[in-house]
């Protein structure tokens, strides 16, 4: 009987469904309901985890929230001894390093993805993709060491020449010690490029052949096909890869704390040392004593959560307006 039911082709089943709605038990037996429940549970678990996270961060930051209110966000003093806590230098450092990292990583990542998907011979593309995915699996502490032993010496050697030309710009002024916002951003960029490359390549490859053929039929060159037909078609996926890269950059801890200098100050110069939210939590949490200090650190976690959400929302808004332009233009 069961075998017979299973072997029934889809068409008669559908027609039967029209006559009589299937009972819950029937659907359960056929697997529909099981899959539905399992996937629903998966979706719910995301909501529950996020909810619990926010609830915990909220409850365990109560003392700091009540003591400082909104001042917490906009003051720059971080003084555990006297119980004065302001998050601004960390918020600033987190945003500056992440945005700068994306500015560096997007052209490199997208360029690589386009090359791998559109231009490179299949063998080269596969080999390089394997390497890129390998890079994504490297632990962040290794990137931190790369930053200290490779990147910083290179930057320190190159910086005097760079500053001779661009030193008059406020963002490149001041003494360069090696550890800085800029070094952290470069390391972050190296860390997030694999995310952009790997996902963007997949979505570029998934663009239907018909899109390319249509463009070619109009007499477009190879590059025109890629840039005008393939990339716009894959834009949604590419944006997705950039969001993922941004999320990774915002939350990265170990590699950043190793190269950013860990100084709780706000500087215009990208070559000055700074601090990020994730780095200060990692640095100070283990030795934090006293409820106010602990709650201030947990409130920083809450702030990071909010910053991530706001930046993500802004990026999505940007994407929506771009789409709107295309429709009207």
């Amino acid at each position: 009987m069961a075998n017979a039911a299973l072997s029934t082709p889809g068409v008669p089943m559908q027609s039967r469904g029209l006559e009589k709605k299937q009972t819950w038990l029937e659907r359960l037996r056929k697997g529909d309901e099981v899959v539905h429940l399992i996937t629903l549970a998966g979706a719910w678990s995301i909501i529950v985890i996020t909810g619990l996270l926010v609830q915990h961060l909220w409850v365990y930051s109560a003392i700091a929230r009540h003591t400082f209110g909104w001042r917490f966000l906009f003051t720059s003093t971080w003084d555990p001894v006297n119980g004065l806590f302001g998050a601004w230098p960390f918020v600033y450092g987190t945003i500056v390093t992440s945005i700068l990292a994306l500015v560096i990583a997007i052209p490199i990542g997208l360029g690589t993805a386009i090359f791998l998907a559109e231009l490179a011979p299949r063998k080269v593309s596969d080999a390089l993709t394997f390497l890129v995915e390998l890079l994504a699996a490297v632990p962040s502490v290794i990137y931190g060491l790369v930053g200290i032993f490779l990147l910083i010496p290179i930057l320190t050697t190159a910086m005097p020449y760079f500053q001779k030309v661009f030193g008059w710009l406020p963002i490149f002024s001041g003494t360069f010690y090696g550890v800085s916002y800029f070094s952290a951003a470069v390391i972050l960029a190296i860390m997030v490029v694999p995310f952009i490359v790997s996902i963007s390549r997949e979505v570029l490859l998934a663009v239907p052949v018909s899109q390319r053929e249509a463009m070619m039929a109009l007499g477009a060159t190879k590059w025109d096909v890629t840039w005008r037909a393939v990339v716009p078609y894959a834009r949604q996926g590419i944006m997705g890869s950039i969001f993922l890269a941004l999320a990774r950059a915002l939350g990265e801890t170990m590699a950043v704390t190793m190269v950013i200098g860990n100084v709780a100050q706000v500087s215009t110069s990208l070559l000055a040392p700074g601090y990020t939210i994730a780095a200060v939590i990692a640095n100070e949490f283990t030795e934090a004593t006293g409820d106010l200090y602990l709650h201030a650190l947990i409130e920083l976690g809450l702030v990071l959560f909010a910053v991530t959400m706001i930046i993500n929302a802004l990026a999505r808004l940007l994407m929506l307006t771009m789409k709107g332009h295309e429709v009207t233009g």
Partner: protein
Amino acid sequence: MIRRLLALAVLTTASAFAQQISLTGAGSTFAYPLYSSWASQYHTLHPNVEVNYQSIGSGGGIRQLIAGTVDFGATDGPMTDKELAEAQQKRGTAILHFPTALGADVPSYNIPGVTTELKFTPAALAGIYLGHITKWNDPEIQKTNPGIKLPAANIVVIHRSDGSGTTYCWVDYLSKVSPEWKNKIGVGTSVNWPVGLGGKGNEGVSGLIRRIPNSIGYIELIYSIQNHILYGDVENSSGKFIKADLNTVTFAAAGASKTMPADFRVSITNPAGAQAYPISTYTWLLIPEKMGDKTKGAALKAFVHWGLTDGQKYAAPLAYAPLPNVVVQRELQQMKKLQY
């Protein structure tokens, strides 16, 4: 017959389980090598006692102890009155401090062309870390190093970015020798630094020192000994310049022992004594005065007693300065307070 054998088997296993005691502790990362060495040595002597020590940091150790999730804690800075009151309230027991070994902070520097040990006055170190002394050839540094040509370069100050007992010891010293530091900055495992860059851990600080010319930073004595890092002498309260080593650190503890309070919560920075190195510190075990499980308590008591007496010989090979005998004697007296 079979029933009797079975009963015997049950009895023996039961008694074996009863004897197997596991003690858990958490806290100081600085003291971790010593406590894990103690734990393994003690386990070979007393196979039924197993000591698990997690080096989660002093702050974490104190929190876990107050919450009652560990049997003992360990810290590089003594618990505050407030924390002790909290423990009393939550666990219903006093917490006793037992110094177990000594450590010290040393000033390390990287000045191109200078390969000898510099001599630092307290005023020089405080001035550098407050940001008042900004050049290496400042008279305060130059006057105690007459033979050395110091450059007119800017001093790059380096400190720890992570909260640590090393920082606690360093700023505790600075606040004793500089009223300005005491009033403006204060003492803690992390402070609001007026100047400088932060490195994570001893390796982070020494890495920055190595990489940045004309820099100065403080690192643990143990770390600098094990890695052969150059460091300077510091002037002590008797006006003598002392190089930190295991002996001069033990002298510091001996010098401070005369004024040591009954609960051992004492900082030994800038102590009396002509041979004492001034930036030294104890590391403490935190032991609850009362314990629910008496067998466990007795085992813990025996372990601490062993550590303070026989265990001291394992300190020096790991580059911890051993406790002076006068302190050990007082601690053994204090152990009588433990109610188990």
